[in-house]
């Protein structure tokens, strides 16, 4: 099926609303959608969601012969699958620009950055090594596939355990089942993070928006995909689109990306460790996929709506009692919450009403965005006051 054409109305209204400082989903320009990571019962299967974008990554392993040029290194192959399930206009089995781009991003971020210790995958030099195969399937395309695919793949690779092997003196290799011996985790030194910025030109001025949705991706002038890790290394840089940009804008984006990357990497590490420790205590049999933890889009959207209404309530209370201490409270409360809601990655959103998703990173994001947009926010608040007065008069 062909892609639905973009009407002039959609294009102009989205651009003008971005110029007016408003995104369709009411996010701040530098705000990222919520990240959740869910792990299957199997080792190395992870589904990541970024807002409504949903990606499933699965790692499998087999014993193969090593490359003659690198006799003591394991292999890693990455395959990206896009089907009409992700978006109806994508055709199955055929490579298109999106698949190529995703493949390139993942190859550079994960394979070429050498974040995975491939030498530990060697069983017998020149004889046999482990080959890890990473299959990334996009389940729903709602913008920013690069980030989502990267998240899912990294989490899956960190989560993956391969079966233990013993090599006997005469060169016989025994692969032990997972029940016989404790499986061995993959060794990943660094956590590669991928971040996407979309640019909208307004004359000479350039507006930068983080984590674009599908609609924004169709309208934007250009885009910057940075692959980096919290250790200060840039692993990939992709800058498609026909636009010119000043060096400073690009550099400031990358600088911001480094601070952001830290929190994202922590989220991933935390989520993987949580799941692995839980696995040890409950001793989950590694088979199949557990559906219980998956977050439904409906629940997520309802949660978003409720959040917005609650925020509004907070603001009303502030207006009623305009004390300075009260004004600071909500942000402090937000920062304090992560400790008690750390386990909420595991809980479905319906059960825990307060902060059901990806909590720690989410809260940190808020704090950052508050710091970054501090000056802008003051201006906004003035406008808001004027607006509220106007609406009140209208109602009378």
């Amino acid at each position, binding site marked *: 099926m062909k892609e639905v054409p973009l*009407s*002039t109305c959609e294009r102009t209204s989205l651009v003008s609303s971005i110029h*007016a400082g408003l995104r369709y989903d009411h996010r701040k320009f530098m705000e990222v959608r919520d990240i959740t990571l869910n792990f299957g019962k199997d080792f190395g299967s992870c589904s990541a969601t970024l807002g409504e974008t949903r990606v499933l990554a699965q790692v499998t392993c087999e014993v193969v012969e090593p490359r003659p040029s690198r006799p003591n290194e394991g292999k890693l192959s990455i395959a990206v699958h896009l089907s009409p399930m992700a978006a109806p206009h994508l055709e199955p089995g055929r490579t298109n620009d999106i698949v190529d781009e995703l493949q390139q991003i993942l190859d550079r971020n994960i394979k070429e950055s050498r974040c995975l210790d491939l030498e530990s995958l060697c069983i017998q030099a020149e004889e046999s090594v482990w080959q890890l195969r990473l299959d990334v399937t996009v389940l729903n395309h709602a913008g920013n596939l690069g980030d989502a695919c990267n998240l899912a793949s990294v989490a899956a690779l960190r989560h993956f355990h391969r079966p233990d092997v013993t090599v006997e003196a005469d060169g016989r290799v025994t692969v032990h089942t997972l029940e016989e011996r404790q499986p061995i985790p993959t060794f990943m030194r660094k956590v590669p993070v991928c971040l996407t910025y979309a640019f909208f030109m307004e004359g000479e001025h350039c507006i930068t928006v983080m984590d674009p949705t599908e609609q924004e991706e169709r309208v934007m002038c250009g885009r910057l995909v940075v692959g980096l890790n919290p250790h200060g290394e840039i692993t990939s840089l992709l800058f498609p689109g026909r636009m010119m940009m000043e060096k400073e804008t690009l550099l400031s984006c990358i600088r911001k990306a480094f601070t952001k990357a830290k929190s994202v990497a922590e989220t991933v590490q935390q989520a993987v460790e949580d799941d692995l420790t839980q696995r040890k205590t409950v001793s989950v049999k590694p088979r199949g996929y557990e559906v219980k933890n998956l977050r439904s889009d409906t629940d997520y959207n309802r949660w978003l709506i409720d959040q917005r209404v609650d925020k509004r309530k907070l603001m009303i209370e502030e207006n009623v009692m305009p004390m300075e201490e009260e004004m600071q409270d909500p942000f402090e409360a937000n920062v304090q919450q992560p400790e008690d809601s750390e386990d909420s990655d595991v809980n479905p959103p319906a059960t825990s009403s307060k902060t059901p998703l990806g909590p720690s990173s989410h809260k940190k994001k808020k704090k950052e965005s508050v710091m970054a947009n501090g000056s802008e926010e003051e201006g906004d608040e003035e406008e808001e006051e004027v607006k509220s007065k106007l609406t009140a008069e209208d*109602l009378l």
Partner: protein
Amino acid sequence: MVFALGCDALLTAPRPRLLAVLPPPASAWATCYTRLLVLNVTTFDLLASTLTTRCYPPHRGPPEEDRVTQGGGVEAVRVVLPGDTVMHYNTETSTERIFLGPGLRWEDGMVRAAKPGLLKKTQRQLYFVDTHQKRYIPQRREYVIGIVTKKKGDAHRVDIGCGEDATISYLSFENASKKTRRYLNLGDLLYGQLMVANKDMEPELVCIDIYDQACGMGVLPPGGVLFNVSLHVAREIINPHSPFLLTMSQKVKYTLVVGMNGRVWVNTTHQKDTVAIMNCILMLEHMSPEEADGKALRVLEALML
């Protein structure tokens, strides 16, 4: 007149009139047998409330007790898959009078399901399959919003969200003649009615009614926001019984155009309000109409900050 409810007429109409459901003209029924009525989606939606309760004169509106019980009396029979036999029905031998709604087909004396979903039945023997779907299947006489994609001789190609593009002749606009022809730009939005829609021909749009009046149809003005919703949400919005639009209008003044193909166009004086209304309508995707209606004002307030 009934069909104009999809457009501005719905918002300008005074409240009591909104509750009146007019029985559609007989010609609007897709197929009409003596005791068996097969309804298409549009007629079904307009008829459904009538059939579940009682027929009443159009100018008076439903009596008070009907408004309370509307939508009641619907019984979910079972889950059906395409091809499942629902019942045997022969127009000559069966005496019972039944209505078939969308998702059901009558062939060779058998009623079969054509869509997967929940088979429902009302007290007045109206059967239909309740399904949630996003892909639009064109139906004659339905109002849709299209995007102009191509100029082709004396016609334009318009994307209406179904498998095939629709065409619209440059003459099928109000006051259009060969000399005063209407120029459409690529990417323009059109609100029109489907004249031809069947599985063997490409759909054809018009922007006039039988009296050559535009009646709210035509090219949508610049500005505003276009977004997509599921088909059942689009029908829910223009349901004359649904108070959702009126609830929102207590807060903001807006113009809304709903196409049966799931495209909705909203415009207000401020961009901020437009986006708020959009998000408020999108809320219907995730909750029941009653719940959304209860939350609408609070959400709007929060979004318009």
